[in-house]
Each structure stands twice: as C-alpha cells, then as structure tokens.
C-alpha cells in the first residue's frame, strides 16, 4: 500500500490532539489501486470508554462515502489510534470488523499508537480478511 508521509503526519497529529481518547478516520482511494489518496478525520462517537474504544459516526461515514463517490474515489480503509497500547489490531477490532458481515472485507487499516500523548509510533498497516477472520499485516510504501 502506498501512502504519502503527509497523510501519516496528519493521522499522528489527529491522534495527539485526541489523546487520551482514541481517534479515527477514513482512507480514500480507488479500490484495487493500492494507494491512499486522502485521509479524512471522523468523529469518535464512543461515549462509554473512548480511551479504549472508538466508533465512527455512521451518518458522517455516509457523508464521506457520498463525497468520495462524487470525487471518483472509494473508502478503501480506516485508521484509528491506540493510546498507550500497541499499534496492532486487537481482538475487539477483529470482532467488530467481523460483525460488519464482510462490508469491510479487503479494507486497509492503519493502527497508530500514541504514547503519553506526545509520541506517535511507527504506524502499522493491515488488510482485513473476512473469510479468514483475521487482519494480515500490509507493508507501507511511503511517498513524498
């Protein structure tokens, strides 16, 4: 997966701003193209445990889906942060992804750890595989 450093910097900045809560967003591109064209911040509407849980507002997600279609793009993936936790998909991430019934099959996920609110980890990329019920690590190719 190819992604610009500016997008990773924006995700890290979003994560630091939102710390100690998790933050989240969508990644836009063309399906099968292997490149992130845009990252867009979404609101974490989780209210019970926002330090360890996130949930994208479905209405905001719908707007992003429509705007991406209008721009000739698709939502190809998502990002979220793990404040003071490792930057890899958790059992909760997998359970929630499976509950979408494959609506996110093949989507690209970036997980970034934010430590003490100031240090962003190297991001990790993953592809969600509905049929095999797992996230497979997906290396980045960072573009300028």
């Amino acid at each position, binding site marked *: 997966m190819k992604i610009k450093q500016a997008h990773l910097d924006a995700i890290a900045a979003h994560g630091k701003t939102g710390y100690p809560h998790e933050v989240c967003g969508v990644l836009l591109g063309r399906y099968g193209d292997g490149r992130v064209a845009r990252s867009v911040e979404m609101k974490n509407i989780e209210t019970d445990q926002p330090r360890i849980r*996130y949930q994208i507002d479905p209405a905001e*997600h719908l707007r992003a*889906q429509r705007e991406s279609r209008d721009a000739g793009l698709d939502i190809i993936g998502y990002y979220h942060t793990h*404040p003071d936790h490792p930057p890899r998909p958790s059992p909760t991430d997998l359970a*929630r992804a499976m509950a979408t019934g494959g609506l996110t099959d093949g989507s690209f996920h970036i997980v970034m750890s934010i430590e003490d609110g100031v240090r962003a980890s190297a991001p990790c990329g993953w592809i969600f595989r509905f049929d095999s019920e797992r996230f497979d690590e997906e290396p980045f190719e960072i573009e300028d």
Partner: protein
Amino acid sequence: MAVRVQIPAPLRPLTGGADTVEVEAKDIAGVIDGLEGKHKGLKDRLCDQTGNLRSYVRIFVNDEDIRFLQEKSTALKAGDTVAIVPAIAGGC
C-alpha cells in the same frame, strides 16, 4: 417501485462491479430480497443466520438511518436512494 441501492466497494465483487443496483421494493426487507435475487450472496453479507440485519451493518434511506425509522419495515417510495454503510468500531 424502483429504488437505487448504493453498494460499498467491498461488496462489488458480488454485483459484477456495479456500484449502484436498482431493485423493485416497497420496504427495506424487499430491498434485501431484491438484492439477493439479482446478486446471490448479498443477503448473507447483510443479515445473520436468523435473517436479522447484522449488528454492525447500517442502512440509510436518503439521509435517514433505518434504526430511527421502522428498521426493515421502513417504507420506500420511487426514486429513494438506499445506502449500505458498515458501522466501523473497535478498540485497544
């Protein structure tokens, strides 16, 4: 009546790549059956084994989430746009 259903990218292999499918339906339950009739396998992606909508699948009629309408009984009118959206959530 005909309504347009927007298909999210991960489901398009089941629709032959189409990003929009038109179906004849009077409510959301009819949309799901109509989609399955045209593209086998779609209903399994949207509904669990009991036929209920999966817990992290959201369906909108125009801008309204059917959870706040009449869910699968939500009535449709000709020209409505139905959108399928995954509920994205997780945590560490």
